Structures are given as C-alpha cells and as structure tokens.
C-alpha cells in the first residue's frame, strides 16, 4: 500500500481541534443519517455519454430524484463505449442479460432511476410530456434543436410545465454559425484551446497532448449543474417560472484558459506549451525518477521509471532543493525566479534534478524532499490513488455495495456538505429497471399498458 502523504511543508495553522470537528461533521459513515439538499426535486436525464449524464448525476448525489431515459433494452451509447469491451457489469437489461454495461458508464449516473423510451416512436412524445409535466428539470445533450424538432424541446415542454428548468448541453453551442457539429470531449478541448497549451515544447516533439480523462465533460456537467441550481433558486424565490439553459462544452473549456486570452488580447502573444514544466515558475514541474517502484510488476507501465512533481519556485525553497541534491552551484547561478524561469535555465535545472533522481524511485525522491520541506507529490497511478487511506477516510473513494451489481469500487462525491452531504446509493442500474415504478407513478400507466409498451420496445 502506498504511504499516506503527510510529509512536506507543514500547514502554518495546525489545529487538531478543528480537524477533529471536521472529521465528525463530514464523517462519510454518517452521511445516510442526514437529509439531502435536493430531495424533492425531480430531474429527467435524457442524456448520453458523459457531459449530460454527469450533470444530472451531480444533482442525484445531492438528493434529487433523477430519472435517466434511454433507448429501450440496449440503453445509451456510453454503456457500450469503454473500456476495451472487457470489464462489464451484467445485465445490460432484463431483456439482454447476456450483455453488460462498460465501466466507462460508471461515475456519471449515480443514484438514478432508469427507464426506457424510444424518442423516435409516436407514443414517446405523449409519455415525455407526461413526465415533464411532473418534473423540475430536464437535462438533455442531443444535437441542438433535436428535441425541439421532435416536439419535446423546451418550447413544447414549457406549455405543459411553465416551471420547468430545461438544461441543454452540447459541443459547440445551440446557436451561432459553428453550432451544427456533434462533439466529444476531445473535440471540445481542442476547439476551446486547452490542447494548444498542453503538451510538449518543440525540442521534445512539440506535439500537443490530450487529457486522458474527460475533463471537458465532467467539468462541463458540473458547470451546468451550477446553472441549474441558480435557475431553480430564481424560479423558487423570484420568478416562479422556468428557464432554458444552454451550455457549450467549448465555452466551458475556454472559461478555464486562465490568462491565455487576456495576454493575447493585450500583446498578441500566443501562450505556448511547455510540457511537464512551467513557463512562469521554476521549479514547478514533473521529473523522471530512474527506478521503478514496481520492478516485478507484470504491467509494463508500472515497470517504467516513476515520476514526481516538485514545487520549489520560491527562492528559499529553491536553495533547499539545490542543497538536497548537492547542486548548490545552481542556487548561486539562479538565485531569483527571473533567472530560473528562462528556457535554458530550466533545461539545466530539470536535467540536474533528473540526474540526481536517476538511481531513485519516486518514493525515495519524495522522502528526501519531505525531509527538506520541499513540496512534492509522486505521480500516482490508479492503484496508488485507490489505496490511499486519506481518500478512503474522506469518503472520496470507497467500496460500494451496489444493490444491483454487488461490490464495486467507486469515486465518491468530490465535495462535502456538513449538514446535507452528497452520497452514492447506487452506481447505476440496468436499462429500463424502473419502467414499472416510474411510468405508473408519473404517467399513470397500468401494468398492462406498461407491459405492452415494453413488448413493443417503446419503453
């Protein structure tokens, strides 16, 4: 098990009494005995892949009743997308028990009810209107205008429910001349400018790099969830009426470009990529450590050398770092950030760090840096993250006894509320699991009607 990261610079305001109080207030084991912030709000999630689903899932974590609506029997595409078609949870649905759902679906559909509805069928419109009449929020991420064309967009649904908050998410926006294309996370990040500043400097190949995780999707979902909360607040405290919300994945990426756009607007300077280093700070980057932490592993990626992030850009920190690696000459030659941050200086400094680390594992490097009060963090893989006692204790990662799939390791909510904590009751369910419950409760259908619609694959 990887060691807990307790070393490095000590917090200036250690206060064990406060920590104990926090542990008590945020105790994950007590979450289910506390109320839920969004209990009583109903959300229809007509979503696919990650951007839209994650938005609804965040609301579900906070207690909203989220109803995921998917293609009958086989569900939405994300169930069949990743990873590698190997690790599946069964059944896909009660009609297709021999197939499963891929773990790419995991984490974006917590705590939800699952029903089928084929939007292409004439009966679907009537059912959707019935569901929307009793909902607070609709989240959807089909191409812009698709639901409007099918007669179930905001303009039609607000006729049956003027208080409806309708949240659309998509790649390039629902209006404007670049709107007409479908998007995935990778395209959104490319157009939004994130990849332009992520990747390698020219001497290391110059290639931009994509983020392995679906950042634009998961952060986009969160941003739209914030929009939804604002719209609900406005409806419930001011206007009494619903709202149409639009979220473009690209807008979300661009919003997080930091100073890239202001500096371009001011000087015409295009911000560049600088790999694992930093154009503005030195040392503030990733170095390779020459020894593997898992030399006997069967996994080729674990056999590779380790990596560690080091932050020592303050002058006094840099001096200690140079002392620690026995290169006081660097501290004398580059005493100030202005001299350290130049490209040639960085090349020399990072090369010296890697030379020093070439006979060490990342843990050995961390140990030396901790003793010298230099901020550092080994680059962890999924196993190391999963086994961290710190994240287990906080409930950010934990084993979930899922009611359908059994024992699964799950990311917990990434935010903590002391009085109304978010929680994970279920990872997800098979397609159409809750057809009977939801269509009887919200659409007033009889058992016979539900059975017939299921046989006809309408739901």
């Amino acid at each position, binding site marked *: 098990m990887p060691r807990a990261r307790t070393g490095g610079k000590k917090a200036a305001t250690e206060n064990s009494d406060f920590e104990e109080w926090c542990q008590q207030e945020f105790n994950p084991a007590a979450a289910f005995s506390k109320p839920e912030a969004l209990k009583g709000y109903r959300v229809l999630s007509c979503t696919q892949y990650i951007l839209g689903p994650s938005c609804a899932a965040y609301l579900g974590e906070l207690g909203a009743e989220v109803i995921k609506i998917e293609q009958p029997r086989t569900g939405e595409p994300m169930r069949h997308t990743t990873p*590698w*078609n*190997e*690790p*599946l*949870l*069964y*059944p896909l*649905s*009660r009609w297709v*028990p*021999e*197939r*499963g759902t891929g773990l790419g679906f995991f984490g974006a559909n917590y705590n939800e009810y699952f029903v089928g509805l084929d939007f292409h069928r004439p009966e679907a419109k009537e059912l959707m209107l019935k569901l929307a009449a009793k909902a607070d929020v609709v989240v959807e991420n089909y191409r812009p205008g698709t639901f409007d064309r099918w007669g179930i967009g905001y303009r039609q649904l607000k006729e049956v429910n003027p208080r409806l908050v309708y949240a659309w998410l998509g790649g390039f926006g629902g209006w404007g001349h670049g709107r007409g294309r479908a998007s995935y996370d990778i395209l959104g990040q490319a157009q939004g400018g994130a990849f332009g500043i992520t990747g390698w400097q020219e001497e290391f190949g110059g290639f931009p790099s994509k983020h392995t995780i679906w950042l634009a999707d998961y952060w986009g979902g969160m941003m739209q969830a914030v929009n939804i909360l604002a719209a609900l607040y406005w409806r419930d405290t001011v206007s009494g009426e619903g709202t149409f919300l639009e979220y473009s994945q690209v807008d979300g990426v661009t919003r997080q470009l930091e100073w890239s756009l202001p500096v371009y607007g001011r000087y015409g300077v295009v911000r560049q990529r600088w790999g694992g280093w930093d154009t503005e700070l030195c040392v503030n980057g990733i170095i390779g450590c020459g020894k593997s932490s898992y030399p006997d592993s*069967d*996994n*080729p*990626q674990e056999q590779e050398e380790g990596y560690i992030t080091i932050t020592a850009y303050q002058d006094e920190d840099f001096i200690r770092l140079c002392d620690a690696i026995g290169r006081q000459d660097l501290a004398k030659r580059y005493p100030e950030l202005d001299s350290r941050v130049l490209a040639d200086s960085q090349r020399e400094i990072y090369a010296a760090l890697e030379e020093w680390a070439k006979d060490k594992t990342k843990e050995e490097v961390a140990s030396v840096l901790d003793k010298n009060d230099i901020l550092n963090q080994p680059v962890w893989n999924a196993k190391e993250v999963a086994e961290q006692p710190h994240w287990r204790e906080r409930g950010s990662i934990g*084993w979930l006894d899922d*009611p*359908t*799939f*059994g*024992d*699964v*390791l799950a990311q917990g909510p990434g935010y903590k509320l002391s009085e109304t904590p978010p929680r994970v009751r279920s990872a997800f*369910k*098979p397609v*159409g*699991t809750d057809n009977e419950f939801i269509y009887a409760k919200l659409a007033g259908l009889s058992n016979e009607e539900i059975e017939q619609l299921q046989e006809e694959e309408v739901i």
Partner: protein
Amino acid sequence: MPGEDNKGLILHCECGVKNYLDPYAFFNFSGKTRCASCGQVYSIELQGGFMTKGPDKADGEPDRLPGYAETADFEPISGPGKTAPSPKPRADILGRPKPITQSIRGRPVSGRPLTKEDLVGSKPRMIMEG
C-alpha cells in the same frame, strides 16, 4: 519496384501486394520489413508517416512485419509470420469480456454474462439472494 507509389505507410511490393504498415509501429521507423506475400525484405525509413528512404531490397530478417496486406484483387493476407498485430496500450487487453464473479477484495460482483433465469426483475439473482 520502389517508385511513385511508395511514399507513405503502404509498401507496394513488386509482387503486386500492398503491405499496410501499421502507423503505431511504422510512423517513425528505420529498419527492415517483409512483404507478407512473397517474403521479399525491404529496408525503409519513415518519418512522420512519410517514407524518406527506400524501399530498397535487402537481405536478412525483418525488424517488424506489416500490420496487414492484400492482393491486387483485395484478397486479405495476414497471419503469423506474415503480418503482426498492431501494438496495444496494454499487453493483457483482449477486446472481449473478461468475466469475473468477485471483486479484487473477494466479494460478489455481477461481472459475468447472465441468463433470464439468473434474474429477478432486472437484478442478478445472486446479488438479490446473497
């Protein structure tokens, strides 16, 4: 033989067979490969997917085999000793379901294909009944 056609990631052999050079393995490559049909070895160099040297006939064993090949009338040629599967990001990826019944800590998980008899409603019977 080498000539106009051999500019990129397709190696046209003089026997008429097209050898497709897997981009992962050959995008930046200098060494020898072998026609999947006639066995002629070629020395080639590619940079950024463009053939910058060769193909020149050579002797000896190939460093890498083409990913796939086909005849002029589109008959596929592949198999051990002729072509090589494309590299994978992980050696143990199979691309097909890997059924399990327990999580890594040894507790039940619904990770294998089921039949309708295995279900109670939409739930796996073994999870429902413990």
